[in-house]
């Protein structure tokens, strides 16, 4: 996904959370991003630095948890991690699948202080 778009979307939630909790200085932002989004960590970092300039989040650490792509086979119920972009059940070869994880773009938490 478009890294700038993610950061801009996240920022709205970050600022709201900081305001609601009276946080004046944000020290860390934790994100959970599914691997199907094909996000490039360095680009996300650059985007974050650019967008956070002169805001409460300037200088904050950006921590990203990359969530693996896990699918569940609708035919036999097997859950498996997708490797090599292969979306077929390793047990029964079925391709009717349900997404268990891998598409997330979640703001997990915001850390900061009331300075």
């Amino acid at each position, binding site marked *: *996904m*478009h890294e700038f*778009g*993610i950061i801009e*979307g*996240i920022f709205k*939630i970050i600022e709201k*959370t900081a305001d609601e*909790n009276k*946080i004046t200085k944000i020290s*860390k932002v934790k994100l959970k991003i599914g691997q*199907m*989004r*094909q996000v490039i960590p360095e680009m996300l970092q650059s985007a974050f630095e650019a967008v956070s300039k002169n805001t409460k989040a300037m200088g904050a650490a950006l921590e990203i948890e990359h969530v693996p792509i896990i699918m569940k086979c609708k035919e036999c119920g097997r859950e498996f991690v997708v490797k090599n*972009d*292969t*979306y*077929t059940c390793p047990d029964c070869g*079925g*391709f*009717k699948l349900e997404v268990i994880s891998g*598409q*997330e*773009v*979640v*703001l*997990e*938490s*915001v*850390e*900061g*202080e009331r300075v």
Partner: protein
Amino acid sequence: MEIKVMKSVLEANEDRAQQIRELLKSKNIYMLNFIGSPGAGKTSLLEKTIESLKERFRIAVIEGDVATDKDAKRLQKYDLPIIMVNTDGGCHLDSMTIEKALEQLDLDNLDLIFIENVGNLVCPAEFDLGENAKIAILSTTEGDDKPAKYPFLFREASSVVLNKADLIEYTNFDRKLFIENVLTLNGQMPIFEVSCTKRNGLDDWYQWLEKELLKN
């Protein structure tokens, strides 16, 4: 202190998309989201599809582009409602844009809405617009390796249209490999090999589309 948020960044877009979905269902309107690279043939496919369906279905088009109204102008000859959306640099349409576009349409007198998304294989697939189906459009001149590079689109799409099939002999495009690549990502994906300019292979696409329309 750490404040747990656990909010999806896409939540706002998805909530709105769901509302759009419910609205269109209540009006018995089927909406398609055409996604493909610049130059793949989205507008050409729309032209042919409109020609095939316009006698039997009341159609409207939401035309998304970064700039210009060139695509919208090409569709004007069919005399149907066209809502032009310029994103001014944005690389995809989102549900807010569609919601505003729908306000300009007479939903009580429509059966079918086609969205032509911005030419881009990455971002458009990630934004739910409240459509019934996403259609992925590629062309043979872009290479047979594209599916693996854009897994999100190929998992989300309901069908793939491979355009410019008449040019395969002038390229390195490996048809079997392409189909294999698509089916590895999504084993139940219908693939339509067409040439919009030569009007080849389109009947299978029209038939599939009509079956989908009547199902809903």
